[in-house]
């Protein structure tokens, strides 16, 4: 017997599909087309073939931006994963006070990136900011408050603020993931005499394997294209210390009026994102969707 997708399902999918094609597929194809042009966004575009693509391999700035992007990805993952995991698992408990903390922890989710960027730039202001006063109160030199203005620390500061923004979201993932874990596993562990740490590493963490993968994919692809907060917080500076690929793409396309070259960066970012997700899914066996609850 032939197995066909019921037509109702096709119709249901259509609106989403139309939007996906109109706002994802078509713009992506246009970016590929633009990447072969020399165009300032105003005048007549000129077809220059692969010149933009050749240029990128001789562009030390792009290489620098790539290095920074990878660094942001690594830092984001290293900061966000353990903290989100801990907060999420903690909040998975049903006690009232945990809900109270939950409300506090999740508030950053409600703010836009621009608002977070502006707020943190005030907090980190080296002459008037909250951080300056804390540093002074702790008895350190006021120079230590030069964080976003210091090429050495700016990127780490950016990664920390990004983490502050997104840890709540990933905690939410872990919270719901942890609530899915069958109670009987914990009961069994209790009977076997496992302590809280043992329970965490032997039951909670393995059971959250797929949540970790989802969260990792989101962190990696998200920080690959991360732009708005960096734009507000440092504008890519000081110098080019936080000029990540997405920032470079924006500057090339809109400030340098070099739409073709900006599109090359956009295409590279898009492809890198897809490849990264596929690799993560392959390596972890997530796409096989095997059950962890067999035999229960």
């Amino acid at each position, binding site marked *: 017997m032939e197995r066909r997708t019921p*037509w109702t399902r*096709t*119709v249901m999918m*259509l*609106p989403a599909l*139309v*939007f996906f094609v*109109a706002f994802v597929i078509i713009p992506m194809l246009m970016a590929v087309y633009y990447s072969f042009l020399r165009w*300032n*966004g*105003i*005048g*007549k575009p000129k077809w220059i073939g692969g010149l933009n693509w050749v240029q990128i391999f001789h562009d030390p700035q792009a290489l620098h931006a790539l290095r920074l992007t990878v660094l942001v990805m690594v830092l984001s993952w290293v900061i966000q994963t353990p903290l989100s995991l801990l907060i999420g698992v903690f909040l998975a408990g049903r006690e009232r006070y945990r809900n109270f903390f939950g409300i506090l922890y999740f508030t950053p989710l409600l703010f836009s990136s621009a608002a977070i960027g*502006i707020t943190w*730039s*005030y907090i*980190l*202001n*080296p*002459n*008037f900011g909250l951080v300056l006063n804390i540093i002074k109160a702790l008895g350190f030199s*006021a*120079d230590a*408050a*030069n*964080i*976003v*203005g*210091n*090429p050495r620390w*700016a990127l780490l500061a950016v990664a920390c603020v990004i983490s502050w923004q997104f840890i709540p979201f990933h905690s939410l993932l872990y919270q719901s993931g942890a609530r899915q874990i069958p109670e009987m596993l914990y009961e069994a562990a209790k009977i076997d005499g496992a302590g809280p740490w043992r329970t965490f590493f032997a039951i909670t963490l393995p059971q959250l394997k797929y949540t970790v993968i989802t969260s990792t994919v989101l962190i990696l692809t998200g920080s690959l294209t991360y732009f708005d907060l960096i734009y507000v917080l*440092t*504008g*890519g*500076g*000081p*110098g*080019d210390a936080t*000029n990540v690929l997405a920032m470079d793409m924006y*500057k090339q396309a*809109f*400030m*340098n*009026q*070099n739409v073709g070259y900006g599109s090359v960066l956009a295409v590279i970012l898009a492809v890198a994102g897809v490849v990264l997700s596929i690799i993560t899914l392959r390596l972890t066996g997530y796409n096989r969707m095997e059950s962890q609850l067999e035999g229960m």
Partner: protein
Amino acid sequence: MQHKLRKTAMAAIVLGGLVAGVAGCGSSGQAGGNTAAGNGTAAGQTNITVWDIQTGDLQKVIQSMVDDFNQSHPNIHATVQFFENDPYKQKLQVAMGAHNPPDIFFGWGGGILKSYIDAGDVVDLTDALNSDPQWKNRYLPSVMNAVTFNGHIYGVPNNYVQPVFFFYNKKIFDQYGLQPPKTWDDLLHCIQVLKQHNVIPIALAGKDKWPDLMYEEYLVDRIGGPQVFDNIVAGKPNAWSDPAVVQANQMIQQLVDMGAFEPGYAGVSYGDGSATALVYTNKAAMQLMGSWDFSSVLTNAKSMIDNGELGWFPFPSVPGGKGDPNDVAGNPSNFYSISGDSKNKDAALTFLKDAVLSDNTVKRLIDLGQVPPVQGIESQLQQAKYGDYMTFQYNMVKNAPHFQLSWDQALPPTEAQQLLTDLDKVFLKQMTPQQFSADMNKYLQKQ
């Protein structure tokens, strides 16, 4: 049969969805233009749209100017839309590319305007101005350079001169017995004294990068004269290696080494007001900034101005320099230009002639402490509330042999952006003056 009907219905749904989607995309592009034109339309009226970026009280001046114009010109209805500075540039770029710009757009003159002119997007105003000498001669000649290309004029000044000079905190200067510096060595002396007393000598909004540029513009002009930058704009080979540029960057790094700027200057922004705040909270003694900074102090610390504690002086002269110490850098004014795609060019021209910098507008600007680039307003300026300040600016611009448009506006965008990044690195001492010149030479562009 029924099966077939279903299929047709489905196709209709699909098509409908697609059409709706496409139509939605199409109309959203035009929505901006339509709403602008749709305001207060009456029969027989010509509608024109103006884009501007003024904020606060200055926005009200522009709004009043438009309202006055609409009242005195029943046949034309002008609508003004205001945008934020940086997003505006991109917004205009996109609108120009889509051939959907406003009739009259706000601009800075220089390189960006040039790229629109090259694309045929800007109306040449030369003939209109020449046929009406009274109109043409209203403006101070030095400001028109920024909108004049090959002898053709593409814009008219629409607000006020914005020369760059030092603002200083008189209270701090008096406290340590300092005089406004006239020469570079005087300035270095002030910095030393202030450093000894743990006062920040100069506030610098390095995060925005363009405040860095003001030092470069002035030092290069003072050391080598305007020719040095003219060579850079013309794209002459190795123009960035001019000894004046190298020396200017050495002098900048000298300031950095002395600790002339506040801690973390590379993270301090002008836009959020924190650089100027250093001056009016008595933490820093000076700031090199455009004349607009006066309004910022007026808004945030009016008492400082009322008590006469805010002072100003021109950028000091550099001993042995070739440049005229009366030269000025900054924004000669902002400008309105008419877009080539405008359907109502005549109405737009009438607007430029009758509304822009009309006597009433000039008066309102003066009331707000701004100096419009028009002839013969000396007595008006002197009688104004902040007459000293405004007369200082007016004379500065009138007597300047050369008014240098900010370099980031005068240069092509790619070169300008690289300049801002590289200069930031000079201020951070991540780049030597020699490395700066070598790197910038790669970005020289013939105009």
